[in-house]
């Protein structure tokens, strides 16, 4: 009886896993097939590998530019929000600031609003007001880095706060007693202890920025286009290059999978605003 239910559970979970994994597997299959084979009978298993799509994507200068942009924007944004979030959390946990709990809650409301709502105002603000002389934030990497702060900075603050709360304040006090400056306390006492939490925050915010599409699609048009927007450019009414589209998808997916393998346990906590420990 007991054994039977174990087998049943196993079969059930293998089926669930196949349903989860098949679409990802299929993406890979399409990416290594020549275009002519796509329209024949779909084979479940691969007979041969066709790497031309990968070569095409890697040798395409525009797409390489997009990849580079994605890399700069997501790295820049992850570094910025983690730094600002860390400092903000240090202030929130170490100082007796008036209304700090309200400020803490207010940060998350920035993330709750649908991004589509902000397309129009951000576009208009960035074209006409957020500019210095001829330099406007529209279609720049720095512009995207700053815009992504509304999504990622609240996240960084909410994930870093428990970490900083967990570091005993006596340590700071002791360091101050020894005559250390505030900067020394932050960088040499608190930061090393917070490193694991900082690493998780850095990686997750990096992936969120890397994955973003909607804002990148409206706030860039040529210079700062990212890989996700490049993907949608391959879907046109006149005909889609399916193989290339699948290959770009694979390229977009790989960094996310790497981060996934490193911080898998923290993803659920991150996506539920810390309501659930993964």
């Amino acid at each position, binding site marked *: 009886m007991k054994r039977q239910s*174990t087998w049943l*559970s196993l079969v059930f979970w293998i089926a669930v896993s196949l349903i989860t994994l098949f679409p990802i597997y299929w993406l890979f299959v399409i990416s290594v097939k020549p275009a002519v084979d796509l329209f024949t009978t779909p084979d479940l298993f691969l007979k041969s590998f066709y790497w031309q799509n990968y070569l095409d994507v890697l040798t395409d200068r525009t797409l390489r530019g997009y990849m580079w942009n994605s890399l700069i924007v997501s790295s820049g944004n992850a570094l910025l929000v983690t730094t600002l979030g860390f*400092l*903000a959390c240090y202030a929130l946990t170490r100082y007796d600031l008036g209304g700090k709990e309200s400020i803490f809650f207010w940060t998350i409301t920035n993330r709750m609003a649908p991004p589509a709502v902000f397309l129009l105002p*951000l576009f208009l603000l960035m074209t006409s007001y957020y500019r210095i002389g001829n330099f406007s934030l529209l279609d720049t990497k720095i512009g995207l880095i700053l815009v992504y702060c509304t999504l990622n900075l609240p996240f960084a603050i909410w994930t870093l706060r428990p970490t900083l709360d967990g570091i005993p304040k006596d340590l700071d006090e002791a360091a101050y007693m020894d005559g250390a400056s505030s900067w020394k306390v932050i960088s040499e006492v608190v930061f090393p202890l917070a490193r694991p939490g900082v690493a998780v925050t850095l990686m997750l915010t990096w992936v969120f920025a890397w994955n973003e599409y909607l804002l990148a699609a409206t706030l860039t048009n040529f210079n700062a286009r990212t890989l996700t927007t490049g993907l949608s450019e391959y879907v046109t009414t006149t005909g889609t290059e399916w193989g290339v589209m699948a290959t770009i998808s694979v390229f977009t*997916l790989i960094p*996310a999978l790497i981060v996934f393998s490193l911080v898998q346990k923290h993803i659920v906590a991150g996506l539920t605003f810390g309501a659930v420990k993964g």
Partner: protein
Amino acid sequence: MQSNKLGWFLLAPTLVVLFFFGVVPFLYVVWLAFHQWNPFAVDPTIIYNGAENFRRLVFDQAFLSSLGVTLAFTFFAVTTQVILGYVLAQAFMRDFPGKAIFRTIHTLPLIMAPIIVGSIWKLMTTPSIGIIPHYLDQWFGYDLNIGQSAIAAFTITVIMDVWHWTPLVTLTLIAALVSLPPDPFEQAQIDGANRRQIFWHITLPMISPAILATVFIRLMDALRTVDEVLMLTGGGPGSATRYLGVHIFREVFPRTNYGYGSAVSVIVLYLTIVVCWLLFVGLIAPRNKKA
């Protein structure tokens, strides 16, 4: 402890960034919603026109249909995810080998970019190259065409969302189920309660806070679904899957009628808040009062 000045100094960059890219756009869009402004029209100046934009909105067929399909999509997707997620979480509570691996695999879709999910499902469901229409036709003689059938396109977007986000519900509920104390269940079994009674009278009330929190998060996310649908169907066929975010991106944004576009944005934001507020007031608040 050092002076509070330093605390504010450390917090300031965060507040400044969120002010310029969160608060200002919000105030700006609300302000614009009460104005008429089309920079490429005959009269390109910004004119205050009261609630005129909102009055137009009520009679805008495109907006209303978008609102309708969004609510339908959200309802079907979130309901399916919660039921399926609960079943999966319960199935996970039994003992079987390789739990950690299955859990890892199940978490995988959560890290994927919505637009990649859209692209994957596009590759699987597009007629002529997709594997799903191919086998549906071969085995059941059913012609799945998301480019022509509104129902098919709608259903596939729901299935896609279920594939992408059910794991979040499952993992949240696993966390809730694991933390339940065993005593009430043992007591109920001693008292001779059957499985259904245990579910309705013990399990459900005990994990309802977790379920509500998940519904809340999923609802918020489902209402703003854009990327994956944009990729999969582009909002079509017709306007069958033109959910509010897609509507703003494809219809409102490209037109340069900025005042009216702002009104649409404000209403979408307002609706998101109202739906979440109703859920909070109707479900979460009374429960807290009781407790």
